[in-house]
């Protein structure tokens, strides 16, 4: 079956034969990725979604890092950090931090799981909703930037006090890795393939 694919980046039209299996091709003019699918089973992706949720729960429940000054210890959790911002009068900043580090990465995982669990061959408009959510949310999910931000904070404090890494640093870093992998495993064409043919 041949069809027309229009490059979203430069508007060049390509006539292509849509392959049945995994494929990837780029725009001949601007090299933007036009089409990408893979053969990773949907169940594997669902399992990754489930482990991401568990890791995020651990990441929220335990402290990221703790600081020991003389005989007092103070631990920072992700939600605690947002609360402190809010208490200091920066509600907007607290909202941005919570959205970019917790809510939107979680929305990304949830939308992907919902798409994979949706009945196959349902109305296209319903499937399109999940595809749209995933592409809108992706740029705003910043788990990997946050992990680096924690590292910067730890280095700044290491000279003046004892910095102790908490369970959450490992759990959240693992969550970040899985969310990044899910991003790679969910190109729009693959999402449509799952919607049309099931996982």
């Amino acid at each position: 079956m041949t069809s027309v694919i229009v490059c979203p980046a430069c508007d060049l039209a390509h006539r292509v034969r849509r392959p049945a299996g995994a494929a990837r091709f780029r725009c001949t003019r601007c090299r933007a990725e036009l089409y990408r699918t893979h053969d990773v089973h949907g169940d594997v992706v669902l399992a990754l979604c489930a482990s991401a949720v568990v890791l995020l729960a651990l990441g929220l429940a335990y402290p990221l890092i703790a600081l020991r000054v003389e005989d007092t210890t103070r631990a920072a959790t992700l939600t605690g950090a947002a609360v402190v911002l809010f208490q200091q009068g920066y509600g907007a900043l607290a909202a941005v931090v919570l959205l970019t580090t917790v809510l939107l990465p979680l929305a990304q995982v949830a939308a992907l799981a919902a798409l994979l669990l949706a009945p196959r061959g349902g109305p296209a408009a319903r499937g399109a909703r999940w595809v749209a959510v995933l592409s809108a949310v992706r740029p705003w999910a910043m788990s990997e930037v946050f992990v680096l931000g924690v590292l910067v904070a730890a280095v700044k404090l290491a000279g003046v006090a004892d910095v102790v890494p908490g369970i959450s640093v490992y759990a959240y870093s693992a969550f970040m890795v899985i969310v990044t992998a899910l991003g790679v495993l969910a190109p729009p064409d693959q999402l449509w393939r799952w919607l049309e043919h099931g996982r």
Partner: protein
Amino acid sequence: MTGARPKTGAQPATGRRLGVRLCLRCRAATRVPAAAAAAARLLCPRCHAPLHERRPGSRSVCAALLLTAAILYVPANLLPVMHTRTLFGEDDDTILSGVIALLHAGSWPLALLVFFASIVVPLLKLVSLGWLLLSTLGAPAPAAPRSRLYRMVEFVGRWSMLDVFAVTVLACLVQFRTLANVRVGTGALAFCAVVVLTMLAAQTFDERLLWDSDAAA
């Protein structure tokens, strides 16, 4: 695949020339007959999102976001992003003094990273998006290098949040009553706004505008 590679002098076979519109939401390509092209509202047959030839208001919305970001860039760099109070006195840190502090902490790779993410990248984004926006209004110019610049700007934009996250963690961690405590400063709010606004500006900008004004070599 048979790419419609443009020959020298020939008009490239774009969606616009062929009357095919791309849905920005679900990426379906829809043939729009010339008679229907003028209709006020066309919907994608697959997902029912509005179909436009180019993102509507791309230039003006992007320009407005950029301008706001450029204005906020000044307080973001001049105002302190955090106040530190210890037994030895009070200290205000701006973005730049934070980088210098990191350098003194002996971690130059991290200092370099924060310097790039917080100082170079926001400035680069403001200048290059502004220039790209202007380039779509002027005489045709080669689109490939402009497109590469745009993609780089879009790719690195998110890393500017690094400092906001670091300050957040510091403010939560360093709360030892009179011994030492850290408060977030107004600069962090302005800086966060600059990052969000420039990211929105990059997303609003329709990359196809660069190729519309391509001087195909």
